[in-house]
């Protein structure tokens, strides 16, 4: 569909875009940002529901064990900085550095998920016991799902980086997208941690 000679002359006249993707201007980062706006609104909806319950229902909140979640928070927040080192590495054409830092990020993400599983296993209440329990599992579970997606995203970048020249200083959309997604998951966790555990 996009193969004829006319097409190349057409696109040649288009505004020069900073990056190219299959001979076309690359709009994928712009699209990803819009997607994350939508994702943010799902979490906003869930947080809003949580806040309404909290402000209208008497003795809604329950005590939560804070040790594991706090360690988890520190791991997840610092993994964002680790990941950024990976992105800086690939900008300098350093694939080994990308693999190292993304590898550590993936490990940290896995530890976070492991911590969450441990926390669930030792929880004093179940999903249907009371409204706070339902909210707790719905919010942290939905976030955990996003961490899993981000982890898979990171592993996919690692997998692809094995092919020589797949990522370079000039072309590394996958790296940047994975990083942006991870930051998003991270920021959502900070809000979630504040609302559910600390408030």
């Amino acid at each position: 569909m996009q193969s004829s000679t006319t097409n190349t002359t057409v696109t040649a006249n288009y505004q020069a875009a900073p990056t190219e993707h299959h001979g076309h201007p690359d709009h994928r980062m712009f699209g990803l940002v819009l997607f994350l706006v939508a994702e943010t609104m799902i979490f906003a909806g869930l947080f809003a529901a949580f806040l309404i319950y909290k402000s209208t229902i008497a003795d809604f909140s329950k005590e939560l064990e804070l040790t594991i979640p706090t360690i988890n928070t520190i791991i997840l927040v610092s993994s964002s900085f680790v990941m950024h080192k990976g992105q800086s590495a690939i900008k300098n054409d350093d694939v080994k550095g990308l693999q190292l830092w993304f590898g550590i990020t993936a490990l940290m993400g896995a530890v976070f998920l492991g911590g969450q599983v441990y926390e669930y296993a030792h929880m004093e209440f179940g999903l249907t016991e009371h409204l706070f329990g339902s909210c707790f599992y719905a919010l942290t579970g939905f976030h955990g799902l996003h961490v899993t997606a981000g982890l898979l995203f990171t592993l996919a970048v690692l997998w692809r980086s094995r092919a020589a020249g797949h990522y370079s200083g000039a072309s590394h959309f996958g790296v940047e997208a994975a990083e942006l997604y991870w930051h998003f998951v991270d920021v959502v966790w900070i809000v979630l941690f504040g609302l559910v555990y600390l408030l």
Partner: protein
Amino acid sequence: MSEATTHHGGDRKWTDYFTFCTDHKVIGIQYLVTSFFFYFIGGALAEMVRTELATPDPDFVSPEVYNQLFTMHGTIMIFLWIVPAGAAFANYLIPLMIGADDMAFPRLNAVAFWMQPVGGILLISSFFVGAPQAGWTSYPPLSLISGKWGEELWILCLLILGTASILGAINFVTTIFKMRIPEMDIHSMPLFCWAMLATSALILLSTPVLAAALILLSFDLMAGTAFFNPTGGGDPIVYQHLFWFYSHPAVYIMVLPFFGVISEVLPVHSRKPIFGYRAIAYSGLAISFLGLIVWAHHMFTSGTPGWLRMFFMATTMLVAVPTGIKIFSWCATLWGGKLQLNSALLFAIGFLSSFLIGGLSGVMLAAAPFDIHVHDTYFVVGHFHYVLFGGSVFALFSAVYHWYPKMTGKMYDEFWGKLHFAMTFVGFNMTFLPMHYLGMQGMNRRIALYDPQFQSLNQVCTIGSYILALSTLPFLVSMVLGLVKGEAAGRNPWRALTLEWQTTSPPSIENFDEVPVLWAGPYDYGIDSESEDAGESVEEMLAEVAEVG
């Protein structure tokens, strides 16, 4: 012209329309045909509802089946007809209007389309397990006790269609911002693109909140939680807040694209520049913003405290300001124009008059004291059908007639098109106008049996709805006759100025043989022209462009 440019849209095989094709024009037509398919299903359900209501007794279907009918009618008409129909025109027109060769993400576009049939089949299949009965709003706790599997299929369908809608919006915004030809700045962009920008912003900000509500509702239904179930300590009002945070903006998601359509159709067929280009463009964005902060006007009777009612009453009434700006600008566009009263313009004028009534009854409903009086009565049913049928559907038909020559390369049959308009207009007003009286007198909505005093007006409604149903016949005749023996349309039968008319009809696979030339604003009829009719010079300019090419 080079060899490669001789592939025209006509070269598309009919089988292409059943494949995972990434061409935005194919996807646009796929959307359009699919949505019309569901329109006929949703319409058939509506006729069954009206047939039941022709008499006060539940003698046509049982009350349970009646509940399923109106629930499915509402859901299908909103999520499988009018929202995808807006996406249909956006997909077909946006790249053509801005001189691009496709959408920003063609494969994502095809994915979003193919979610429509999947969601539609899921929803329709719920009839086999007991269709949902809780109305299109699915308020808990009713939705939690009125049939588990039908309700769950309803939730799944909406999650799929909502995702498709979000993916589409990402595509529209990226395409509009990033793929305009260099000389087209954002203020020389056709107003339809502005309308889709406002629509997409709403979709991105509100649809995910519905997803959040549906996920929690699904938990209540399937996992035994009690987010919205008062017997377990939950709060049904929270569902209403989340639901209407999407579903009020959703009415603008349904109507804003068609505001865009009207802004395209009126100047072309009245040969006048659009009145107040920037006012129309920015008022769309204003409607989007206000649309996000008015949702609780659906909840005036849900125990909402007075101070909150005041806020939502005031903001709701404010929506009338940008909408009024649009209506007056459209009227000013028509004023003193050389009107070509073809089917496209007739439907556009039908839109103006019907939507005006819907808008005015909307301001009435915004007033909390009046709303409390007519809440959940047929007044509300009449109001939203004037907005959605009189607004969106009339404009949609206008769009179909206006762009039919571009999509098919043929002219539709004008006689049958005008008959279609006459029957639609009469049937529509006969069906929905009496509902306002019924509501004021206290007839509840969502009931299969009613007080006999309401019978005569209900029969008027029912007869009107039959006329409305029959009006689809001349529509189909006009479309098919056009395809079979319509005369060739040529590039620009309406002598319009927007870019989609600069290419062949139907457009070649790559849209434009060369980068289109922007030599006038989209609505500069009669400007910078010696002759009285700007259309003359348009033809000359087009001929020049073709020769140079």
